[in-house]
């Protein structure tokens, strides 16, 4: 599904990632964990085209996606969410999701300007679909609220709804549980499973170990820019190197 081969990222003199390789398997939830500064977010930014890696390749469904403009990734089936939610604040919740459906819209530059009747029927279809995604994440009752007025937890749900509206095959979530209370985190875990059950591959960077161990099928551990371990939650929990990285060495 997604393969990282020898990813190296050097910022000035700092090596943020050093020769990191692993693959993400389809229809699974993969967690990327590691202590602060391990390079998790850098890795996400490389995969989603925000940074250009110094060396290495990102292969998505068989093709190298390095250097592809960010807006084309959504069309290719990859979306992401951010740690600090990135919403369109002055638009309503519903409109935020409708915009996510834009990449599937057939109205092009001129069609939207000149073929009004087409655009109207399409708008109706998109509106209904957007409602469905809001229902999917459980915030349909907030459809007409301005996005900037949403509480943080609901904003996160909205960001996920908007990402799902792009109909991705792979969704990357950057610390989805950050800033959520425990009840919201339980809801999130359920939602992430629901997303996987739709046949969407999920990759998440997360600090909430309970959540990671609970929902992930596989876990990749990064430490100091290198891959430390990879395996099932069970294996990771029993891995002495991982324990050392997290709790510090005895020596």
């Amino acid at each position, binding site marked *: 599904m997604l393969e990282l081969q020898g990813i190296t990222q050097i910022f000035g003199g700092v090596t943020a990632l050093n020769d990191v390789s692993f693959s993400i398997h389809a229809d699974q939830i993969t967690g990327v964990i590691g202590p602060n500064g391990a390079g998790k977010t850098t890795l996400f930014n490389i995969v*989603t085209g925000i940074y250009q890696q110094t060396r290495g390749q990102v292969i998505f469904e068989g093709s190298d996606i390095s250097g592809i*403009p*960010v*807006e*084309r*990734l*959504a*069309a290719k089936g990859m*979306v*992401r969410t*951010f740690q600090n939610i*990135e*919403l*369109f*604040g*002055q*638009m309503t919740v519903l*409109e*935020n999701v*409708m*915009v*996510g*459906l*834009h*990449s599937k*819209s057939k*109205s092009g*530059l001129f069609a*939207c*300007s000149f073929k009004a009747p087409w*655009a*109207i029927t*399409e*708008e109706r279809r*998109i509106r209904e679909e957007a409602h469905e995604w809001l229902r999917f994440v459980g915030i349909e009752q907030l459809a007409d609220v301005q996005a900037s007025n949403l509480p943080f937890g609901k904003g996160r749900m909205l960001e996920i709804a*908007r*990402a799902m*509206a*792009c109909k991705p095959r792979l969704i990357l979530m950057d610390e989805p549980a950050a800033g959520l209370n425990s009840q919201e985190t339980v809801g999130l875990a359920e939602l992430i499973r629901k997303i996987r059950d739709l046949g969407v591959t999920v990759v998440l960077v997360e600090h909430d170990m309970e959540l990671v161990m609970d929902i992930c099928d596989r876990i990749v551990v990064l430490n100091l820019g290198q891959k430390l371990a990879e395996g099932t939650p069970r294996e990771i929990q029993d891995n002495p190197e991982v324990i050392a990285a997290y709790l510090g060495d005895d020596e």
Partner: protein
Amino acid sequence: MELGNQLLQYLLSGLSTGAIYALIGIGFSIIYNATGIINFAQGEFVMLGGMLTLFLMETLKLPLWAAIPLAVLLATLVGLLFERLAIRPLRKASPISLVIITIGGSILIRGLSMLIWDKDTHALPPFSSEEPIMIAGATVLPQHFWILGITVVLIGLNKWFFSHTISGKAMRACSYNPRAAGLVGIDVRRMVLLSFVISAAMGSLAGIIVAPLTMTSYDVGVMLGLKGFCAAIIGGMSSGIPTVIGGLILGVLESLGAGLISSGYKDAIAFVILLLILFIRPQGLFGKPESERV
């Protein structure tokens, strides 16, 4: 003429020039919201509208109704080329460099127009009869109604586009959060191009509908552009109603000032308002102060 009639007269003519400023101002706002730059070539699209219509009528002997859409199309094409050739290759440049490029572009377009056409002032024929209409002692030209009517239609279309079409929403999304917009698959560069296309089309149409009243020449874009900019500043760079109100306020104050004080101060009034707004309420007359901009 009584003062009351006089005031009504100033008000009516102020509203129609104000409508023009509003259309030009919306053009400024649309590009600003999509790109963060002030396009000082906006006035040249206005000039091109009037001059191209005239050119098509005189050279190709086209009737007015055929010349207008063709002129709008050509001016829009200039807007599109301007974005492709002058803005897009430098998208990584800082906004201030881009603003200066638009000033350069405006000088270029103006210079070429002067060379292609001439330095004379020309009048476009009015859209319908020149017979003034009397309203409560004030005389109004039918062209004023054309201006107001077309402005209302354009603003309505603009509003509909931004709030009811998916492309309009995508453009708004780009202005609120370009990064997130890119990630949900919106081609931000295409939206920037679209903003130039819409602004050029609106600007040129504004230049056409005002030309029968105020005449047109290769350099009308400078003053009209600045007045439109002023309207956009009053409206807080909104591409909606606040800028329309900004344009109307400006038009009416200008017309009252010219009538009651002296027509020599007409342009000064606009710039005094511009400076006052920039000093006192840089967020626009109706905007909330910006607390945070990340």
